[in-house]
């Protein structure tokens, strides 16, 4: 893999993070009447000026980010804290730190969203491939309008429907939460099965909502690839149908499909986060929802920043993987 390709992509990653951090920093300061300051003042006032640690925190905040500080100083201080992984304190659950708040919720989200997205992508892509097979039976082709409709429904709305049908009416699955109520988290079978039960519906929402889109896009790509010259020569060579379909058609369609995965990554994450809200699933999304309700600005900013960084890193990794799959990319610099 040529060095300048890696460097360029890494540069993009750094640029994204810088932009994300800057926007995150600027927003509260651009809105008239700095809301963060206001919230802090309000908290201070309601506590009657006697909150020990809270006072200390507010003082140190003022010292670093206070309005009497020149903007540049605030900006640099912000970066300084970030690089020390100090995202501040949760205003709602003081003295819990934002980083702790996030790290307790993060594994839940990674598990749910990560695995569901992978399953959704894989099943959708394979399904799309099957739908594009020239000899596909009429019945299967009837799936296409259904998939079109499915792909147009926002993730979390599908979640609502699933909750109603499976949790309330059919009572097959729990309606919310990440693990059985009142239970403790241990590494044993009952807990694990409880976790899986609770994860089932949220996962199903993400998977079902995504399948339509992946299947349709894969099918579209294969259909257009089937018109390419190399398919004609493959047929002329007397290759068997399935070989042509898998190694000439699908293999070539996989590349743009993965690119699409990268491009839509932010949408996937956004949708999944809303699903967590519907199911009160204890991940980052639900944390965000709670923080919004409590106007816990530091947690909100922390989560948003983390999302930006996480997606940028995932895209960077995808960019590194891509040349391994598509031989044309690695040699782009010729």
């Amino acid at each position, binding site marked *: 893999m040529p060095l300048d390709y890696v460097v360029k992509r890494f540069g993009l990653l750094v*640029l994204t993070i810088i932009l994300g951090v800057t926007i995150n920093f600027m927003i509260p300061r651009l*809105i008239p009447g700095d*809301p963060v300051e206001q919230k802090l003042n309000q908290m201070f006032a309601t506590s009657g000026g006697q909150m020990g640690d809270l006072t200390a925190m507010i003082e140190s905040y003022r010292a670093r980010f206070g309005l009497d500080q020149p903007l540049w100083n605030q900006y640099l201080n912000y970066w300084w804290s970030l690089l020390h992984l100090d995202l501040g304190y949760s205003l709602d659950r003081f003295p819990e730190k934002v980083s702790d708040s996030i790290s307790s919720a993060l594994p839940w989200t990674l598990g749910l969203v990560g695995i569901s997205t992978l399953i959704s992508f894989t099943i959708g892509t394979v399904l799309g491939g099957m739908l594009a097979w020239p000899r596909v039976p009429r019945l299967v082709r009837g799936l296409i309008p259904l998939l079109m409709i499915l792909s147009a429904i*926002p993730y979390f*709305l599908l979640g*609502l*429907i699933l909750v109603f049908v499976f949790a309330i009416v059919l009572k097959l699955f729990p*309606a919310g939460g990440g693990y059985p109520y009142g239970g403790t988290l241990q590494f044993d079978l009952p807990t694990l099965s409880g976790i899986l039960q609770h994860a089932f519906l949220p996962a199903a929402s993400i998977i079902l909502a995504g399948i339509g889109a992946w299947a349709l896009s894969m099918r579209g790509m294969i259909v257009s690839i089937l018109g390419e010259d190399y398919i004609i020569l493959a047929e002329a060579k007397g290759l068997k149908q399935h070989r042509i379909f898998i190694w000439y058609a699908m293999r070539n369609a996989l590349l743009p499909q993965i690119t699409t995965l990268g491009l839509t990554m932010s949408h996937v994450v956004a949708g999944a986060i809303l699903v967590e809200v519907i199911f009160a699933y204890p991940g980052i999304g639900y944390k965000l929802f709670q923080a919004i309700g409590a106007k816990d600005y530091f947690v909100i900013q922390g989560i*948003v920043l983390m999302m930006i960084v996480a*997606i940028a890193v995932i895209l960077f990794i995808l960019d590194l993987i891509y040349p391994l799959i598509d031989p044309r990319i690695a040699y782009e610099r010729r």
Partner: protein
Amino acid sequence: MNTESKTQTRRLRFPNLDLTLVVGISLLLTVLLFGLIGPSFFDPKTTNVGAFPPRLPPSNDHWLGTDSQGRDVMAALTYATPQTLKIGVLAGIIGLGIGVILGLVSGYFSGIVDTVIRTTTDVLNTIPGIALLVVIATMMRMMSVELMAMIIAALAWRYPARAVRAQTLTLRERAYVQVARLNGMGGLEIIVKEVLPNLLPYIAGSFVATVSQATLSSIGLEALGLGPQNTLTLGMMIYWAQYYSAILRNMWWWWAPPIVVIVLIFVGLFFVSSGLDQMVNTRLRRTE
């Protein structure tokens, strides 16, 4: 010979109307009519909090019952629909406008201008819209329909900018643009007279996609509780339904109808965009 070619062109003009496009437009028109004409059937006061006894199931008096705050759900639905459409379309138009201008400029004039715009757009595209929208929306003291549209538009231009830029790059190399340049036409004039008209199908496609995006963002923000608290939109209806545990209380008449209307909107938009894609493609195949 002459009569032959005439009938040929006449036939060519209409077979493009793809079925998907027609279905999509009908769905959207239905929702539009519902949202524009529907409210005239209901007294706006019936959508106020406390207008009726709460949690009533559907009946002859209230076709979709009442919600936990005493609103007539059917009436609320007809008033909420145009609000949601308003946000989506408003954000879509503004976002499209900005996006088209940036895309045209970036695609036509390469060099530094292009690099700056392109890199910014690329980087911003990787940042999840919802994330930034959440940060901005949380810090607003007051939220209104118009304000939401503006905030969403602030990020909605990303997609059309990229799409328009890509198309402009292709069109720029077309023969008629080269000819115009040789004839001494200035850059801006070429963009407006030669490039823009040929971009129209792509702009239409981008518009649909942008509106779809924007509506999705607005509903997402509302579901998180960041929507206009005093106005009813479809997303807000869902938010309130969630807030008052409508699902657990089995109040399907409250949370299901907004979902139905939203799904109709998105499916309609999807079909329209799919149909437009087909049209653009067949057109391409014929010209090349």
